[in-house]
């Protein structure tokens, strides 16, 4: 099929969705193409931390400034995607107070509100913290739901005319002289092929940026850094808990919906598709985070997962295309003589909007049009169903739920199904809170399949979907199986392998998430 658009955005993470929204709000036609679903990469595999910027305030003040500015904007435009929890930077005896004092000074210089709390005040706010702590600094960190945020951006982009082509991979480009004239793409689920003409091409593929550029014969030095995280079965603190020391392993604990997320590690990778969490990473995360919250040692873990940070390795020559060490915007006209190709990568989830703004500003400059950005002013639309834990708790008992962990109502799921454009089973899960709670989908996926049959959306033997899901779930469960997690595991195996007598699919290992 032949398609034509003004701007082809490649990559359906926060950055790509943000760019699609920004373009469409400025009235520039955009098509977003993504080889998986929205949020398949790092956007769906992170902490869910709404950075105040404090974490980078000493090492990278420029990135910190961007974070606090975007933090303030997100509170205005996307309150339904956030939880304003605040964050504490806790100093333990072994951390000393030198870093803390530099930290407070740097926060002041960067206009990040920072309040020093005594040991007693801190323990009054968070009684489960290590009582040996010296002090803490309170900053405006928070929790963010990346799924709600990216889906809201995509929805708003769509409302304003952008179109989306998901599960479709760009296979090659047609280059004519100093211009890319078309991209060839293939629907990975149904095999349909596309030829997409555009005036501009944006590479917003995050950690995959280098892989994409290779298709036009270019390369980009990327440092792929895997960050692993653990999820606990309940919220362990009211606030985001950080270690008041230079960023390191296992020093962030984020309360998010009904769970807490412990992170992170940093492991240099060669392969961008490798998400496996290694046993020593699990040990490291528990050892380090439990120094701040000792009861993590007894907490029930429900999943381990990893995402890949797309870090840009600075090139030798002084590179003015790098806007900051936080993210990098590359105009390939200047760098490689390709007039209509732009790469945007690096950055944080919190700065996705700014990254989109700068990218679209560059497009406007190239188009020689004067259209200003409005994404920082126009609120993102809230979906009909309740998003936050607080709002969902209000619905308890008044609706039929599919997921009892996260209180996801059947009506909400039907609404998502009706929106259409779902190509795979995992697409449904990404658009709801299903499988994100305590049981990690052990109960609700069976119910979701039942609902799909009830609605006539599935008619064949759907147990291969159930098996595929259980295998996918297993990847995140297997690294954390000891202690009380073994109880749940025995229950789940007892249901699926025992009562249901489900057995390994012959095709295990290939395309199990379809």
């Amino acid at each position, binding site marked *: 099929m032949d398609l034509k658009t003004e701007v082809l955005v490649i990559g359906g993470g926060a950055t790509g969705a943000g760019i699609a929204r920004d373009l469409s709000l400025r009235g520039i036609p955009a098509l977003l193409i993504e080889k998986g679903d929205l949020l398949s990469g790092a956007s769906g595999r992170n902490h869910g931390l709404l950075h105040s910027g404090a974490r980078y305030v000493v090492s990278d003040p420029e990135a910190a400034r961007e974070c606090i500015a975007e933090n303030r904007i997100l509170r205005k435009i996307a309150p339904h995607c956030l939880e304003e929890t605040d964050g504490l930077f806790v100093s333990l005896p072994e951390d000393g107070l030198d870093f803390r004092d530099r930290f407070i000074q740097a926060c002041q210089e960067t206009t990040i509100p920072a309040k020093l709390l005594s040991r007693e005040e801190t323990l009054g706010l968070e009684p489960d913290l290590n009582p040996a702590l010296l002090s803490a600094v309170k900053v405006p960190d928070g929790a963010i739901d990346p799924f709600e945020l990216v889906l809201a951006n995509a929805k708003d982009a769509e409302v304003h005319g952008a179109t989306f082509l998901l599960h479709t991979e760009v296979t090659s480009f047609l280059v004519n002289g100093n211009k890319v004239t078309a991209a060839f793409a293939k629907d990975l689920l149904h095999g349909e092929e596309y030829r997409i003409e555009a005036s501009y091409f944006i590479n917003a593929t995050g950690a995959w940026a280098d892989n994409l550029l290779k298709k036009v014969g270019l390369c980009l030095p990327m440092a792929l850094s895997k960050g692993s995280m653990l999820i606990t079965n309940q919220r362990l603190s009211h606030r985001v808990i950080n270690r008041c020391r230079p960023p390191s392993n296992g020093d962030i604990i984020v309360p998010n919906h009904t769970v807490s997320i412990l992170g992170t590690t940093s492991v240099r990778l060669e392969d961008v598709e490798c998400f496996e969490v290694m*046993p020593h990473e699990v040990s490291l995360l528990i050892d380090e985070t439990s120094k701040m919250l000792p009861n993590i040692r007894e907490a029930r873990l429900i999943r381990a997962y990893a995402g890949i940070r797309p870090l840009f390795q600075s090139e030798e020559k002084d590179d003015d295309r790098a806007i900051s060490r936080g993210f990098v915007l590359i105009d390939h006209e200047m760098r490689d003589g390709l007039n209509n190709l732009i790469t945007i990568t690096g950055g944080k989830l919190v700065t996705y909007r700014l990254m989109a703004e700068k990218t679209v500003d560059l497009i406007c400059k190239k188009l020689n049009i004067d259209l200003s950005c409005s994404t920082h002013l126009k609120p993102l639309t809230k979906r009909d169903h309740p998003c936050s834990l607080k709002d969902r708790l209000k619905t308890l008992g008044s609706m039929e739920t599919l997921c009892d962990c996260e209180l996801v109502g059947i009506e909400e799921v039907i609404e998502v199904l009706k929106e259409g454009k779902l190509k795979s089973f995992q697409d449904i899960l990404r658009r709801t809170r299903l499988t994100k709670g305590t049981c990690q989908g052990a109960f609700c996926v069976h*119910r979701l399949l039942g609902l799909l049959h*009830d609605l006539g959306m599935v008619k064949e033997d759907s147990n291969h979907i159930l098996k595929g899901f259980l*295998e996918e*779930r297993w990847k995140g469960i297997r690294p954390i199986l*000891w202690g009380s997690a*073994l109880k749940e595991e025995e229950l789940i195996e007892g249901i699926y392998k025992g*009562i249901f*007598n*489900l057995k390994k699919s012959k095709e295990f290992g290939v395309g199990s998430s379809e």
Partner: protein
Amino acid sequence: MHYDLIIIGMGLSGLMAARVAAEAGKKVLIIGKGMGCLTLFSNTIDLLGKIPETVKLEDGLSQWIHDHPDHPYGKMGLEKIEEALSSFNSFFPPPYTFQSKNGTNSLVPTAAGTLRPTYLIPSTMMKGISLKKKKALIIGFQGYKDFYARRLADLFNCRGITLSLAENPQKEMTSTALARLMEQPFLRDLFSAEVKKQIRDEEIIGLPAVLGVNDPTKIRKEIEKKIGASLFEIPVPPPSIPGLRIFNRFKARLLQKGVTFLSGHPVTKVVLKGNRCEKIEVSHPPITNSYSADRFILATGRFLGGGLIADRLRILEPIFNLPVAQPGSQEKWFEGSFFDEHPIHRAGILTDVTLRPVDERGNLSFENVWVAGTILSGHHYLHEKSREGIEIVTGYWAARNAMRQ
């Protein structure tokens, strides 16, 4: 308080043991931190589901015993297995019986639209094994989330409907709530009338296993008469009503025979003297009660029941600290696919042929302690489909052996 026998654990193995001892006229205490796992997984009685349906189970089992001397069945032998099973069966006289079809395993339909091999089938599930041969209608209930009639119909290639029975303010129902509703005559009338309206030429009607807790056969007969077709129950995710029926039957009979039942009582400590156990303590701070006995049976299940616990290095038995057959280091506990046979499930307590705990070298750990149920090592009940069989057989023989001494 002093007892002849104290049984720790209220699953099927503990209940079987209590029954044997009580019938021998002993003074018995059965104590559990919950009420066992019967209400989670048990619907039918698995003996060795991995033996093909075409083979007489007795023959398959004989071969299995021969090939697996360290398996609990291998330790017991065919005769003892049969004796224990018939003891279980004598607790379930007609009309609610557990029977095999021609002495072989049969395939029972499940709520996931799969077929599951099992041995002894309660009378309320019997008709389900002819699902593929007869015209069937599957019935689900609005608001009951663990059973989807349309999905089952699509998978079993038959018809499925979901009934909305009554204006329910709660909107949602569990299997337990449905089973209690089914015990109400007005609801049975309503259900029968609805089914009668929907039924076409179907001969058998499948529904989730909720035909009442107390008298499922009476309820089934009454509805069958009204609708003019046979009913069968289909196993669902926990809680299991058929499992609750087994638990209730045992509990009622054991209480009649004077057995003391203490549920909600986690054993916090055992008091030992030499290689004998003298008493157990149950601590509900600030109160600690202790119970002494001549003999003890440990039937605490695996990880879910709390019979085994694991830190990141090894697996422990928390009450007596008995030696546990270890499945290697933590990275080796589980395989790469969820559906693999994970080595951790082979871990458990080693025993001699009389079910007394021993260490790796075969030395007896205690003189007056016996071990029963899934906590034992040497089996893989999930893959063998042998859960209830192991529980019944080892529970029965642990008590018999204990009584003998």
